[in-house]
């Protein structure tokens, strides 16, 4: 995209996120559908719909950061950025006129029941980040992509992100198969965009805690004037910057480097985010003190998103043991 065009799209997402952010952990049930509908109307699913895509991965990563910066019930990753990329990769363009509007073109992605990348056949699956989705795309370890029907909602620790079961007897429609390079690209892309959304959440929450430290007074002065608090916030800031550098670079690699290199960069980014975004949010909560321990406060919404996100797609243990050895020479 041209720079001006990108900034326009970014501001659309920013405005959307401000307007549809939830104020508490109990959003009005009608809110979810209305917000997802409004997100759909932004037309972002087109960004990665064609080859070459209209938006770079780095641009999509920046949009994911914007979406992550507010507590939202909407699915930007699953239905808007991930599933369309998968469909693009398997060459199944599924243009809107091929699908009847009643059925809805909305797909999200299927993950293992523990939210990691799906394992060998026979493992339980769920549809992840599925607000507004009718079906879920499952990528088997061999690259085979199938489309599955969805079951009832699965409540989870992340109160905002939609997850639904995939019934074991769900009829699977095979859509195609990713070759080795496309499979690596897909994994790198998913890891990078999820990392970006989590970085956006951590950056925003740390920013809110810095603002709070300026306003909140104890012992007759702003708590942000105490060095103990300052050092906590400085550490959280450095952690967010480390996450930002790693995810931006991983996104750039997807745009410019071979898939194997992009996958390594994406794994590095996810490993950094798993640890550092969580630490940063924990620090933010500490600075907010008692108020952040309440149901009303947004802190736990950020914490829940980042904590569950840090185990989604790939856990720290998965990533660190993989990264501990040099990449096999292909």
């Amino acid at each position: 995209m041209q720079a001006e065009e990108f900034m326009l799209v970014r501001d659309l997402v920013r405005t959307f996120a401000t307007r549809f952010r939830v104020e508490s952990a109990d959003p009005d049930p009608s809110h979810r559908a209305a917000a997802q509908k409004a997100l759909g109307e932004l037309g972002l699913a087109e960004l990665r719909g064609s080859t070459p895509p209209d938006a770079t991965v780095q641009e999509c990563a920046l949009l994911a950061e914007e979406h992550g910066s507010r507590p939202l019930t909407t699915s930007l990753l699953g239905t808007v950025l991930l599933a369309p990329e998968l469909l693009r990769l398997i060459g199944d363009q599924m243009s809107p006129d091929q699908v009847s509007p009643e059925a809805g073109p909305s797909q999200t992605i299927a993950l293992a029941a523990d939210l990691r990348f799906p394992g060998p056949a026979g493992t339980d699956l769920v549809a992840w980040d599925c607000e507004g989705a009718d079906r879920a795309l499952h990528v088997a370890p061999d690259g085979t992509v199938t489309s599955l029907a969805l079951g009832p909602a699965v409540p989870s620790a992340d109160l905002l992100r939609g997850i639904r079961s995939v019934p074991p007897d769900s009829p699977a429609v095979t859509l195609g198969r990713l070759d080795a390079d496309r499979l690596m690209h897909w994994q790198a892309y998913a890891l990078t965009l999820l990392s970006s959304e989590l970085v956006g959440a951590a950056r925003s929450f740390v920013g809110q805690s810095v603002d709070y430290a300026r306003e909140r007074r104890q012992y007759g002065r702003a708590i942000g004037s105490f060095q103990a608090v300052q050092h906590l916030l400085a550490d959280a800031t450095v952690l967010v910057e480390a996450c930002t550098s790693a995810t931006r670079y991983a996104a750039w690699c997807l745009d410019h480097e071979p898939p194997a290199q992009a996958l390594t960069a994406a794994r590095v980014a996810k490993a950094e985010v798993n640890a550092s975004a969580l630490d940063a949010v924990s620090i933010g909560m500490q600075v907010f003190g008692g108020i952040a321990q309440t149901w009303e406060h947004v802190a736990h919404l950020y914490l829940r998103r980042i904590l569950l996100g840090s185990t989604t797609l790939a856990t720290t243990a998965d990533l660190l043991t993989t990264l501990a050895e040099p990449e096999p020479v292909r």
Partner: protein
Amino acid sequence: MTVTVTAATATDTPLDFGDPADLDQLRRRFRAWLAEHPLPERGADEPLPVFLHRWHRQLHSGGWVGLDVPQAYGGQGLSTLHQVAISDELGACQAPGIPRIGYLAHALLEFGSEEQCRRWLPRMLSGEDTWCQGFSEPGAGSDLAGMATTATRQDGHYLVRGQKLWTSYAQFSGLCLLLARTERADPATDPSARPHDSISAFALPLDRAGVTVRPLRAANGDDEFCELFLDDVRIEESERIGAEGTGWPLAMTTVSYERNALDTGHISRYGVLVERLRRSARDRRGELPDGLLSEIGRCYVDYQVLVAHTRRRTAERLAGRTAGPESSYDKLLMTRTEQRLYETALRVFPGEFFGEGESSGGGPLFGDYLYSRAASVYGGTSQIQRNIIAKRVLGLPSAG
């Protein structure tokens, strides 16, 4: 509640992490030169700084030092990125890096007169003059502005009296970038007087009468750090860099380059050790406990994040941003990487605890491990970096 992201950290537009087009060509030319001019052999009794100095002269003869310094002053008139690429290439083949003179050169370029740049920079780049940095003092470490060394003006010159500490390799240096107090502002009579405002910078030739250099043996056995005793040393007015009282901004410029991941050349050294750990993890698969395997993975993540962060800095510098208080992020991330890396390396290679080493007990990795403990101290402690981020990036209020 409104969410404000500080301007310094708001990077919400795409960045180009790629190398500028001509860098690839430069790298290839350098590799070809390196193949014909390999690293010299170090003599059996040759001190490391002497050996590194020979290497410096060899690199300079090929035109690989001071790439980012204007041609008028003996450089190549290219960008910092070009110099960084050369550091990177040297690291990749495990050769010692570019001599660490970049931050001194930047200080001269920014604060020195035309005449001073012409006089000192070409000889600094060529290695004819070796420089050291006389900033810290026994009573002025983190609180650098509290320095006590004075330069008293007398008949068109200065007399300098005081003591400097942690002056790396002063015993092998010909010149010292020295900070001293030219007038002592008295807070009793002038409440607005800051101790920072009376500091001036000088280029002091170390062979001058009244200078005594005493090496200080470090914990790892190396004689890197020195004490510098200054007893009524005469410094000419023409040897003052910048106006009187501008020593503090000069020092801050110097340290912010010293903290910037781009300018220090440590990163390639980390990369070599990380790959050694990863090869060991592969070769000893099943032998290393899972916890240690994860630590190696974590070291690799730290290192790659630092590389990504440096590339982001590069992209930002290309987009027109200069080194500022954000270089404290770089310093903290480098410290994190270095300290975990050497701790982990000792666990992977416990044999390094034994042997006599070059200058202390234990193997070479143990010496490097001890040096890594200094990473959170030199160039501003980790606590000072946090203060800088809190005050100058986040804008948090001061106490009182």
